[in-house]
């Protein structure tokens, strides 16, 4: 009985430490608001059709005001609606990139780390090749080769991202593999694939999830970059990168609002993911808690 009580305290305390971390808490609230506004965008704005790309030339270049709090763009579209609909693309690109990267990288890294030998060598040399190029440049090259589109941009960025997760998963696996309980399982005659699934995977997931949370912000940034140079989301749809790109020609002529608000959205979202990831890392590792 006593043992159970201790468990409840411990599970509770990870969440508790996350909630006590003010930066993580604010970040989490901010991200939840952004996600909700993206999901419920059609209900939250009267300009849903403009968010999807329909022009309203009467409101062309309207500065921020009561009608359009963040102003309107060159086709008169409400910037708030554009940001909300753009968030759908930007956030989903970031999340998809990280998800695909984990799904490809983690199993490869685990297998390489657990089995070792020539398989390890082969996987690691392939990751070396990928890591040898600057990631953004490689993503641009792949996206350009595949053709400019939202999904191709996701694929292109994920292709540059998975080696990091393969590396991380392999390093974690190498340390877990030496644990006595792995040897104990082998001596019982448990099959390798069961050992990987039941003993290694659960033990390496925490650092991978933390890294994933930290990476989503960066992935959103890179995705915005591809969209900015026209290799991502295509008109009439927009994401934050496209919006910055649309506004860049008018920034110096006084229409500052077109690029500023999407820029802020990217900056704040990327930062929030970083704080959140950091908070999760601290909460998941009791040794780091004391330093707070």
């Amino acid at each position, binding site marked *: 009985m006593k043992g159970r009580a201790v468990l409840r305290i411990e599970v509770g305390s990870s969440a508790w430490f996350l909630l006590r971390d003010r930066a993580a808490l604010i970040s989490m609230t901010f991200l939840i608001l952004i996600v909700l506004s993206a999901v419920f965008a059609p209900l939250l704005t009267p300009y849903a059709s403009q968010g999807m790309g329909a022009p309203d030339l009467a409101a062309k270049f309207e500065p921020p005001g009561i009608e359009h709090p963040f102003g309107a763009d060159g086709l008169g579209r409400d910037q708030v609606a554009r940001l909300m609909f753009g968030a759908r693309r930007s956030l989903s690109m970031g999340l998809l990139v990280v998800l695909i990267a984990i799904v490809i990288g983690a199993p490869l890294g685990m297998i390489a780390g657990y089995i070792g030998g020539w398989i390890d060598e082969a996987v690691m040399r392939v990751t070396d090749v990928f890591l040898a190029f600057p990631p953004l440049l490689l993503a641009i090259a792949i996206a350009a080769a595949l053709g400019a589109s939202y999904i191709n941009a996701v694929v292109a960025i994920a292709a540059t991202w998975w080696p990091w997760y393969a590396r991380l998963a392999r390093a974690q696996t190498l340390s877990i593999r030496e644990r006595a*309980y792995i040897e*104990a*399982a082998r001596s019982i005659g*448990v*099959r390798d694939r069961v050992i990987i699934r*039941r003993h290694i995977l*659960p*033990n390496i997931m925490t650092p991978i999830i933390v890294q994933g949370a930290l990476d989503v912000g960066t992935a959103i940034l890179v995705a915005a970059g591809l969209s900015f140079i026209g290799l991502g989301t295509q008109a009439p749809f927009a994401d934050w990168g496209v919006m910055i790109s649309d506004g860049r020609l008018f920034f110096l002529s006084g229409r500052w609002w077109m690029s500023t608000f999407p820029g802020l959205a990217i900056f704040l979202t990327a930062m929030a993911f970083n704080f959140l990831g950091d908070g999760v890392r601290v909460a998941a590792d009791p040794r780091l808690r004391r330093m707070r």
Partner: protein
Amino acid sequence: MAEPLLSVRDLSMTYVRRSSLFGRRARNVAALKEVSLDIEAGETLGLVGESGCGKSTLARCLLRLLRPSSGSVRFAGEDLLSLGDDAMRRMRQAMQIVLQNPFSSLNPRLNGFDLIAEPLRAHRALSRKEMRDKVVSLLAEVGLTSDFLGRHPHQLSGGQAQRIALARALALNPALVILDEPTSALDVSVQAQIINLLIRLQNQRGLTYLFITHDLSVVQHISDRIAVMYLGRIVEEAGSEQIFAEPQHPYTQALLSSTPAPDPGGRRQRIILPGTVPSAANPPAGCAFHPRCSHVMDICRTQYPAPRRTAPEHFVSCHLYDSAQDMESNSMHNLLDKDAQQ
């Protein structure tokens, strides 16, 4: 005479340790050298030695968790080293190991049920109900209630965790259980509980134990025979009472006298060995013990002493006993096999 359950002949294990990045100065570390031993069904063989003597390497070679460099391991009539991977996996049901520290040998993320069910899942197709019943009966057998099904290792005391590890080892009805320092991480009062449990389980199930330890007082309590290892070799082997009453190898004598006994009055003459155990990467020539031995002779520095039989069941590898019988034989292997033929 029936074939022993486990029979090891001339088992050697050499690691290659690379000392530089490019492995130019590779060094061979001989962790085991020509180890031979037999374990009869139902008996307990105690394997004693200090850290680095190769006792844990030997256990891992027996289970084929490590590949020995040469020699043979026969278990239940099968040559383990020539078995295919699948046959070896099946064979593992019959030989289990319990490791020193249960908190590292039990996956902290699994609860009591999953820990004990793991070997059953690997080898048996049981229904949920059968699985649960089997796990609960195993728990009962090691003295735990079904309360422990949902507990994770960090919620257990050392003794409870070691009982769970024992239940795991027993799940597949093994013939041989290798116990690698199973009580070293435990407190005295808990150690006694586990030792009693081990003896009771052995009597009930007819288990065969290979009990590996550095603690002589524990090993004499549980073992029928004891083998003493030093730097990769078995230097002495005899019945438990025999080896305690008349230790013959100078190393065994020193080991016995170094073990602190809780009786301040009965102070025996203490032999304090000089120096430390040499590195297995660079062992002394001849008898590896000679730099620390107070009886060292010239021959010890050049020639490894072949095992001699000094009493019916007492073998020792030491030049002090060169005049003993069996002069013609040159290894314990031959002595053992000759026994078998008679």
